[in-house]
């Protein structure tokens, strides 16, 4: 039995390894071709590069205005996630602690609205915000992310706050804290596990989101990372080398964060999916 198990585990390990290699293979292909010249790629796209030539990277970096796009993505993601967690936790708090009819209605309304897909409202969204001149601005985009992200975040905070005992807050009130002080000093720190989960899910979503920024941000200097890769790739499709380097440049920051926070990210996805 023992020996059988070890053999079985050996076979599983072997099968999984092969599958994983196949799984990761596309990234490997992009990596090796990002160092090659066009001629070398066309000759044999599977061969390792003969020299580590960084000219494709320099080319892609300057032409897609990498630093600018990276900063745009960073600003948009950071502000959106900060605002979503802050505003949604406050909202969920009032929904749980004040059992007013209106609060119950709003909570139900927000949860029910989660069924509306983005594609269902993108056309009127563009029309409305275009007509009041809010297109082409990062801040309008951040505002939209708060609107799109609020429902799920309120829902997740709501479930968590319900399980926090009232006593702590009552003690704080007796000590003379206002409601806002009670929330920020007592409740918000207790929400850290949910805040982490929501932040991870929203970072993955907003950092990689394409369609909404594609519709809202028209001007080249406003582009986020996925957008600038999209336009760069569209313009230089035949230039495989720089195109591969652009893909690498956009992937590397995410992979670095993943290597550092792998456990938290997988846990975040796990907790976020069991709603």
């Amino acid at each position, binding site marked *: 039995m023992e020996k059988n198990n070890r053999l079985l585990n050996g076979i599983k390990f072997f099968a999984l390894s092969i599958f994983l290699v196949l*799984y990761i293979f596309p990234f490997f292909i992009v990596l090796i071709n990002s160092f090659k010249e066009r001629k070398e790629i066309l000759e044999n796209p599977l061969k390792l590069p003969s020299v580590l030539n960084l000219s494709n990277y320099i080319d892609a970096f300057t032409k897609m205005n990498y630093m600018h796009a990276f900063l745009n993505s960073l600003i948009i993601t950071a502000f959106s996630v900060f605002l979503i967690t802050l505003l949604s936790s406050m909202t969920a708090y009032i929904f749980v602690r004040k059992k007013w009819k209106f609060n119950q209605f709003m909570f139900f309304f927000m949860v029910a609205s989660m069924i509306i897909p983005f594609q269902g409202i993108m056309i009127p969204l563009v029309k409305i915000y275009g007509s009041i001149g809010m297109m082409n601005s990062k801040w309008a985009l951040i505002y939209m992310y708060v609107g799109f992200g609020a429902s799920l975040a309120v829902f997740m905070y709501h479930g968590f706050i319900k399980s926090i005992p009232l006593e702590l807050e009552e003690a704080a009130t007796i000590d003379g804290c206002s409601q806002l002080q009670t929330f920020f000093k007592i409740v918000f720190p207790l929400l850290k596990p949910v805040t982490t989960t929501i932040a991870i899910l929203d970072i993955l979503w907003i950092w990689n989101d394409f369609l909404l920024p594609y519709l809202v941000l028209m001007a080249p200097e406003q582009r986020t990372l996925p957008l600038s890769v999209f336009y760069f790739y569209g313009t230089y499709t035949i230039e495989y080398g720089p195109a591969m380097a652009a893909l690498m440049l*956009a992937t590397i920051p*995410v992979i670095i964060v993943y290597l550092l926070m792998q456990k938290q990210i997988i846990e975040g996805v796990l907790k976020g999916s069991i709603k």
Partner: protein
Amino acid sequence: MNQEKTLLAKLKTYLIFAGPTTFAFLTVIILPFLYGIYLTFTDWNGISATHSFVGFQNYLQAFKDKVFWTSFLLTLKYVFFTVILINVIAFFLAYMLTSGVKGQNFFRAGFFTPNLIGGILLGFIWQFIFSNILVYLGKSYDIPILSGSWLSDPDKAFWALVIVTVWQYTGYMMVIYISGFMNIPRDLLEAASIDGANFYQRLKNVILPLMAPSFTISVFLTLQRGFMVYDINLALTNGGPYKSTELISLHIYNTAFLSQQYGIGQAEAFFLFFVVAAVTLLQVYFSKKLEVEN
């Protein structure tokens, strides 16, 4: 906690805590949704300042449009295959990765990687694989099925989309199934083994019933994402060759923003909304029923 006595005091507390969220939610989701209903009854072309009422014309036009139905049926086919393949593969990966194999965490992290990267990038990566790497392999080793690019053949381009989608989401669903497996009590499986249940019996009578909640979530997510797919479709095939792989989201986008038939596009978008809402609600309803019966 303070108790608000007057309506004014209540309003003040509400606005301080929930005001900004409520405002953003109403103006970003609800207002466009309602305005969208109105748009479907107009002939707005995206540019002109005025538009007139056309009644149900947009819905009629959308439903009479053969291209729309082709795209919708193709989306159904795509959803069908991706939902099944993703869930079956993710389930078995999760099963293997909770059985005490060496390097479990490393494998889990590895299979999850595509989910960190946006669909546009993944689509471009695979575009290169399909049109260069596979063609190169096909030509060098004389493999007929690979000798031409899959992306220039209508039928194969569809399967390319399926493959990339399965590759992308398997790792995500695997994580959900892993948590399901970890919640199965070990002693229950051991008891079943001692009672002489073979692998198939254990799977059918112990594992699958206890995994029902994971199936509910995972099938829900794959259904929803399947119907909504846009990024991969745009980056990998852009609907080509000859519009043969234009899935419904891309079709709606093109109708509205490229052909500038906003009313028709919005009518199609609502149709999609109703289909997705109906399908996912039915799915959750029936899987919840299964969970309870078990």
